[in-house]
């Protein structure tokens, strides 16, 4: 049975093209994906991301548990509401999932994990939690709406209940505030400013309609994908999975090696991999010839070594095709991409193409 979010009927009445997105019936676009993409870069767009999984971790050992569970260190979180991006690794340092963890207080954290990995994530967390005095509670009755773009915050704040709008207007990037069941994080997956709002399901349709009334445009998961690709943000299942470690996935920056005395799941394996010298590197690609880069295309280095495109597509901001790729570390500035048997030229760039409406690479 395909799963539906509380906004399913709303999407359909707006004329959305719906697709099966990892078992969820979700809008891929409401007309033009490219228009939706530009709307987020230039004004404000919103996404129903209620399929994502919210998990609350509570208990006297919540901090100790998460310091062991996650490769990044929640001890870095000292201000209430502060968020941290982290990988959750298995014992071999393979990536079980990537997630955002918010610090509520020393005994309470909120995690947002991927929808496609929900079952295995919850099972893994439950299993690891057995040794700690903590509770792991999924919060399925919450909806989640991401409002993103340079005008997102000014559109959202007046619509939030009670004084939450005032608090939300004040929070710094990568921080959250909350009121009752409403939770507002200044986070996102587009490279633009904005909020991700977790709210009670019975409030979601009304809030969505209010956002439309103030000019926030509904955007599908298609635009969400091109926005995150331009912003250099990895997608679980495409850019990394349990067979890949953070070092070869462009996520070295998310590993907290220090303090030395903190152990976390996968640390030993990861240290051994690093010691041996890493073979593959995670890069950005900009296609110089005509065509479109796509996941699984082969990357060919001048010396004949090969790598693979992990995510690729058309960048509406650059009007060029861009990609992420996992390639031999010896790669220099240029490579070829095998596109249906023909080799097309691409240049190697940092995997961050557009942020805050600004192009980050040389075209």
């Amino acid at each position, binding site marked *: 049975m395909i799963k539906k979010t509380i906004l399913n009927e709303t999407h359909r009445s707006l004329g959305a093209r719906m697709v099966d997105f990892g078992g969820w019936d979700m809008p891929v676009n409401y007309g*033009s994906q490219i228009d939706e993409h530009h709307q987020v870069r230039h004004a404000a767009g919103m996404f129903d991301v209620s399929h994502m999984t919210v998990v609350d971790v509570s208990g006297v050992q919540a901090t100790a548990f998460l310091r062991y569970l996650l490769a990044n260190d929640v001890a870095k979180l000292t201000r209430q509401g502060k968020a941290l991006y982290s990988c959750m690794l298995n014992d071999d340092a393979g990536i079980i999932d990537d997630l955002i963890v918010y610090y509520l207080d020393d005994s309470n954290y909120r995690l947002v994990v991927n929808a496609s990995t929900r079952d295995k994530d919850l099972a893994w967390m439950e299993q690891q939690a057995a040794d700690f005095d903590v509770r792991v509670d999924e919060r399925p009755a919450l909806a989640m709406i991401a409002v993103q773009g340079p005008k997102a915050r000014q559109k959202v704040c007046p619509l939030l209940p009670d004084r939450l709008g005032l608090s939300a207007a004040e929070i710094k990037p990568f921080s959250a505030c909350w009121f009752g069941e409403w939770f507002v994080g200044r986070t996102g997956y587009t490279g633009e400013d904005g909020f991700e709002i977790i709210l009670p399901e019975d409030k979601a349709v009304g809030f969505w309609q209010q956002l439309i009334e103030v000019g926030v445009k509904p955007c599908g998961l298609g635009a969400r994908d091109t926005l995150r690709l331009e912003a250099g943000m990895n997608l679980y299942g495409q850019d990394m999975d349990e067979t890949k470690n953070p070092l070869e996935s462009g996520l070295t920056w998310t590993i907290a090696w220090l303090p030395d005395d903190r152990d976390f799941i996968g640390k030993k394996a990861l240290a051994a991999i690093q010691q041996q010298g890493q073979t593959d590197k995670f890069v950005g690609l900009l296609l110089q010839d005509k065509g*479109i880069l796509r996941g699984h295309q082969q990357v060919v280095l001048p010396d004949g070594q090969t790598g693979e495109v992990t995510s690729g597509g*058309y960048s509406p901001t650059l009007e060029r095709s861009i990609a992420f790729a996992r390639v031999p570390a010896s790669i220099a500035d240029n490579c070829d991409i095998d596109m249906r048997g023909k080799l097309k030229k691409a240049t190697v760039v940092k995997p961050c193409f557009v942020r805050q409406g600004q192009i980050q690479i040389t075209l």
Partner: protein
Amino acid sequence: MSNTPDDRKYAESHEWALLEDDGTIRVGITDHAQELLGDLVFVELPQIGQSVGKGEECSVVESVKAASDIYSPISGEIIAINESLEDEPEMINHAPYEDGWIFIVQPIDPNELDELLDDEGYQAFIDED
């Protein structure tokens, strides 16, 4: 609701074929196909002079979502291609039956057109999905 004009024939792989006054056949993709694909961002055109068999892949259209092969609905030789699609692939979204045409074939046997679906047949075919 997609649009299916009655002046041309259709393939189940979602191309249309229009018999021109000079006996050549203009080919493009249907409104239904462009809707399914989403915004088009690249078209790999066939070569002029290339010979194609009926049902043979000879072009590729790429949307924001995926790449999709275009099959010639008729056997013959490619005698013209719509070069403006190189800069404006979105023309296929805006006018799939007019300015968004892809190539023109000089057919070997124009009777092959009879093997394709008419507008009602194609509409019934896509309504089954």
